[in-house]
């Protein structure tokens, strides 16, 4: 060990690397842990459930282990009509979201309200639970908007997942949680970001997300490389299911210049009436249409209620 003083060198290396890890991981962890879940954040977390990427309960990313977002129009207990409200239904056996299992994740204020008034710690995976988002009379620190919190309606109102699902029409049930799994699995986020930019994007893509908008969500799937428009608020720009259906089946039907791939395979085998979808025939007719041999494109088959495309459309429409 002459002029090359390796012992000093390796210590200096450890020091430098350790210092950089502390600054980039340890220091910001305080700021990140202090984030307080906003209403948007609570909605996203409750909608997408425990995780939307690979998980043991859904190894092939089929959209399993996911909650349903249900528009409740009638009181599930009494059957009386009520002011419509969104409920997040976790059928028995569905993993609860991170904010329920690790309440600190919700942030100061929200955690306390959700635990004390919302009784979320009483929710059990085995028996399932129904959650609501409530507004309190406290204010968010940075923007003068009311602080929202989670309520476990199974504990506070006695709503069980089965009762809520039974009284809801199918059109009031959003499979947005499973849809997020589709979004991740199909790699939508390789071309569509979920992160409008503070500096430029407001007018076209809407406002950028705020700090509390992601608590408990995983993966956030921001995306990094845009080849199509940002989708964070796409549901506010376009909420037409018919348009979405045509666009997913073959984007060129509604947008001739689109470079989006066709997602017709998400329709599965059969359409809404249980009839087998003849993709080959559809494609050849579409080619004829494209060549000008016929004047109208073939009809897009209506998707089945339990098809993967339904989940994905529900997710996209729900991006408000």
């Amino acid at each position: 060990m002459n002029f090359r003083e390796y012992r000093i060198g390796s210590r200096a290396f450890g020091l430098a690397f350790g210092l950089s890890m502390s600054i980039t991981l340890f220091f910001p962890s305080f700021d990140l842990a202090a984030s307080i879940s906003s209403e948007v954040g609570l909605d996203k977390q409750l909608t997408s459930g425990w995780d939307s990427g690979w998980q043991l309960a859904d190894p092939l990313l089929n959209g399993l282990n996911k909650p349903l977002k249900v528009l409740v129009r009638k009181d599930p207990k009494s059957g009386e009509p009520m002011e419509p409200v969104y409920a997040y239904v976790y059928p028995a056996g569905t993993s609860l979201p991170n904010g329920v299992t690790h309440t600190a994740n919700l942030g100061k204020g929200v955690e306390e309200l959700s635990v004390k008034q919302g009784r979320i710690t009483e929710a059990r995976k085995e028996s399932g639970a129904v959650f609501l988002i409530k507004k309190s009379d406290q204010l968010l620190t940075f923007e003068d908007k009311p602080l929202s919190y989670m309520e476990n309606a199974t504990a506070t109102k006695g709503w069980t997942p089965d009762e809520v699902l039974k009284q809801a029409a199918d059109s009031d049930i959003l499979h947005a949680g499973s849809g997020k799994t589709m979004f991740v699995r199909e790699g939508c986020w390789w071309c569509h970001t979920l992160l409008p930019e503070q500096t430029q994007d407001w007018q076209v893509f809407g406002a950028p997300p705020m700090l509390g908008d992601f608590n408990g969500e995983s993966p956030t799937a921001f995306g990094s490389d845009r080849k199509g428009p940002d989708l964070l608020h796409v549901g506010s720009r376009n909420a037409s299911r018919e348009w979405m259906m045509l666009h997913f089946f073959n984007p060129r039907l509604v947008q001739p210049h689109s470079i989006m791939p066709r997602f017709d395979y998400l329709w599965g085998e059969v359409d809404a009436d249980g009839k087998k979808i003849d993709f080959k025939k559809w494609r050849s007719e579409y080619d004829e249409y494209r060549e000008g041999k016929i004047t109208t494109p073939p009809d897009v088959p209506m998707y089945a209620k339990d098809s993967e495309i339904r989940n994905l459309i529900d997710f996209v429409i729900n991006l408000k």
Partner: protein
Amino acid sequence: MILKYLFAKNEAIPVGSAAIFFGFSAIIWFMIGTGLGSFNAAKLAFPDFVTGTEMFAFGHMRQVHVLAVIFGWISMAFAMAMMYITPILGNTRLWSEKLGLWNCMMWNVSLALGLTLLWMGVTSGREYSDFPWPLDLAVAAFISIPLAVNVWMTIIKRRTQGIYTTNWFFAASTFMLIIVFLVGNLPEYFHLTGLTEAYMTWWFAHNVLGLWITPVAAAIAYYVIPKVTGNPLYSHRIGHLHFWSIVVFYSTPAAHHLMSAPLPEWLKSFASVEGVLILVPAIAFVSNILLTMQGKWNMFVENLEVRFTVVGVLLAIPLNMQGGFQQTRSINWYIHGTGWMVAHAHLALLGFSTFLEAAAVYLGLQTLMKRKLYSLTLGNLHFWLLLIGFSTYWISMTIAGLIQGAGKIYEVPYIDVVIAEHPYMIARWLGGTMVFSSTILWLYNMWMTAREGTVIPVGRMPHELAYER
């Protein structure tokens, strides 16, 4: 043949076997990776090209291309370089050829498995750390840890007192890769969510590029240029500046990938300044290598390995100018999330680093197989197809990115941006396809070298022999 050696005694395995297997695996993965890239690019130019099957959907193939290139081509070429350069610099043999061979086989198996699953859509949904966590652990256990053990043990058992610059980088990078892999995937093991997950995703992505790919590629140039030209490395001191600035500055700017996310601004300020400072290692590296070339510039024309290396080094200049400045508050808002970034990523991986690794693989395979390159013509064709293909890709994507940036600022309807980008998408596909075809030529050339290259006499280096075809 690999099977025969896997269970042989370490002493019975010919020197360099592991490196040779790694070298050919790397070239094959390069072919697969760029083939996928070319296929994906075709889909962006012509969206109805191969359509309607889940397995051939763009969203299923994009990440396979990226990871095949990073963990198949680049990292395996690195492993190849480490397996033969580390022992040479320590005047010794590789600590364990057997471990190297097992490492190579397990690497191929786990990568093939991981990519197949990824192709099916089994993903964690996190860019660059797309593998689900069990596979991440497999990568750590079968890929990075055995490699690090072999490199470290070889350095510890060296027969010199000093350690040459290249080996500092190899030792540090193999160590940092393990840490980065294990720490960067924490959100998956422990289900960390929200902005923490997003930030850690980019912490991983940044560091795997900055602490693994960049330094190891540079370390290869530190070996190839002095070795082939015969010149001493210009300055041991600049080597210090380079090494320490990589460790210090490259490990910190992770947050600059998320300049538009609501991360704390102080973190962005910090990361962004550090991000510009990646120019420090770049300045040190480029100046050291180019100064080492003094008096031997004829080899830039005459010798294939030197040409590949120097082109890689020269590409480090635009790479770091872009990388340093595009992430600052002043510039990032214009080009963030556009094709500019795609061009930049390819400048880093297909430009800068691929050229350096290609030189290492050329030189290493010839040295270890003791055979002169089969055909200089094919080598030249490989070089020019790669360079022109890459340049076409880079220039077209940079222009596309600037169009996209302008579209973003002036709030042009997105579809008009898509229309304006179309010609560049076709150019990108042509460029990518040239790169893909060049790898096929390369594989053929190396295969023929193994079979029919002129035998190099004992005690001579491949670059001392004249090319024959």
